[in-house]
């Protein structure tokens, strides 16, 4: 008999598959009806499987979805007359083929690329992707992206409206537009992952789910040969590297632990191996991406046995390259932090002075924390204390607050001695 634990995230993953297949059959304009129908299938399963989980749960769901699709077709009376006789007859062959593994993957890819359609607003793309591909409810999306549920509903409704009004089709982009779209797909996956990995919220489970979904999607894209790119492999490597540290990043009390204080034995080795493999594959492609440098930096950190053994010189070069490719206030700040680690104080302050802390938004406390480090390095203790106080006034996370407070008392001791 099947045990419940073996189902893993079956419902969530199956939801995305089914919505994608049915959308391929009935067309993107019917997506709302399709989502409702698929939701019903799961509702049904959740009640029927209370007593006994079927021998092959996935097949059960697929069959239910197929039947649901036939019901739907009768209801929608779609113009697709060629697949009218779905259960028997010659068209049933084509219909059934859509449920084969590689066709399911193809349908899912179409959905990802549709979610990243340039006609959809960027913020709507992420909500739409999480809903249709990963089966998140409005409430889950809201909690994952730190938004109000009503905002998420608005975004989803707007995305659906745009799809209808602009007559978007459920197809993979071709030729010139393809590269741009793939680029955006990578970006959306990266953003989904970051929401899970970097946000300071307490709900660990939903964060983990976001990271897991992002990895699953980036893997799905690499499955298709013509979609493999250096960026794609580098992105996958980056996500694996970061995800390997997910468990060690949260203390038992739900606090966030920084790289320096993480228990390195908790880092998940198989993911690191997977990441390394992907990163080396990405090197076979001519293009370099920011994902590549980010992944290479992450790999350097993972390779260091202790924080003290970190090869800052190598990391510095990687950050310099990243900054050349794509300079943002965050990459600049990171560059300055590495320089401070290497005691290159003059270079560090030059970069720090070029950053407007406001551009760092809720992470501007890191700017003041780094500035404090600079003043400490060149023995300007009162200035260092000032900066720590600025950082303390901005930091929200309790663990980091504690970190700065300890730093402050250390500096005060130094001042009085």
């Amino acid at each position, binding site marked *: 008999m099947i045990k*419940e634990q073996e189902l893993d995230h079956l419902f969530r993953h*199956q939801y995305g598959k089914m919505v994608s297949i049915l959308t391929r059959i009935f067309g993107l304009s019917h997506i709302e009806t399709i989502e409702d129908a698929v939701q019903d299938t799961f509702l049904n399963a959740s009640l029927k*499987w209370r007593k006994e989980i079927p021998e092959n749960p996935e097949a059960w769901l697929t069959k239910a979805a197929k039947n649901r699709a036939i019901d739907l077709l009768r209801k929608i009376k779609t113009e697709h007359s060629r697949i009218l006789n779905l259960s028997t007859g010659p068209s049933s062959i084509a219909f059934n083929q859509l449920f084969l593994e590689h066709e399911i993957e193809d349908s899912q890819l179409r959905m990802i690329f549709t979610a990243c359609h340039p006609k959809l607003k960027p913020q709507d793309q992420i909500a739409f992707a999480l809903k249709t591909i990963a089966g998140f409810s409005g409430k889950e999306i809201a909690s994952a992206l730190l938004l109000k549920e009503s905002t998420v509903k608005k975004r989803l409704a707007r995305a659906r409206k745009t799809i209808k009004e602009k007559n978007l089709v459920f197809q993979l982009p071709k030729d010139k537009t393809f590269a741009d779209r793939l680029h955006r797909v990578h970006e959306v996956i990266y953003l989904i992952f970051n929401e899970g990995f970097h946000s300071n919220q307490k709900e660990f489970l939903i964060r983990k789910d976001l990271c897991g979904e992002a990895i699953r999607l980036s893997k799905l894209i690499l499955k298709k040969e013509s979609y493999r790119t250096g960026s794609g492999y580098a992105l996958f490597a980056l996500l694996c590297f970061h995800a390997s540290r997910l468990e060690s990043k949260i203390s038992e009390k739900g606090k966030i632990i920084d790289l320096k204080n993480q228990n390195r034995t908790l880092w998940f080795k198989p993911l690191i191996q997977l990441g390394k493999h992907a990163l080396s594959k990405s090197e076979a492609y001519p293009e370099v991406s920011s994902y590549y440098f980010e992944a290479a930096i992450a790999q350097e950190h993972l390779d260091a046995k202790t924080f003290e053994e970190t090869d800052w010189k190598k990391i510095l070069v990687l950050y310099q390259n990243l900054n050349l490719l794509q300079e943002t206030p965050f990459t600049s700040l990171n560059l300055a932090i590495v320089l401070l680690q290497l005691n290159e104080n003059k270079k560090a302050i030059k970069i720090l002075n070029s950053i407007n802390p406001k551009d760092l938004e809720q992470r501007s406390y890191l700017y003041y924390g780094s500035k404090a480090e600079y003043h400490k390095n060149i023995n300007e203790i009162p200035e260092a204390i000032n900066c720590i106080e600025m950082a303390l006034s901005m930091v929200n996370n309790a663990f980091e607050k504690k970190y700065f407070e300890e730093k402050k008392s250390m500096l005060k001791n130094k001042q009085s001695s």
Partner: protein
Amino acid sequence: MKDFMMIFIGADYQELGLSPEELQTRMGKWFAWGGKMEAAGILKGGEALVSEAKCVSGPNRTVTDGPYTESKEIIGGYYTVSAKDMDAVVEIAQDFPDYDLGGTVEIREIMVFDR
């Protein structure tokens, strides 16, 4: 030993708009609870009920569509169990998965007719 019915009221999943993931989690909890009762040999039967309903009432047999009450009062299903007394069933009902969704378990003893 006596027979009891646990009647599950409220916590309509459809109404609550649970995500596939949440539905699966819920299902898993029900599955575990049922398994536990079965292993203890106390579970006698039970069903889940579809939430759409029809009501026939009055001398004219007037037929109306459900839901005839607020959704939090809809009966979602039942289990029959055999136990020593009401307190023992209250204990069993501790594992009902949907209290956090506003669900209620009503416990009733099944009447035995004397021959």
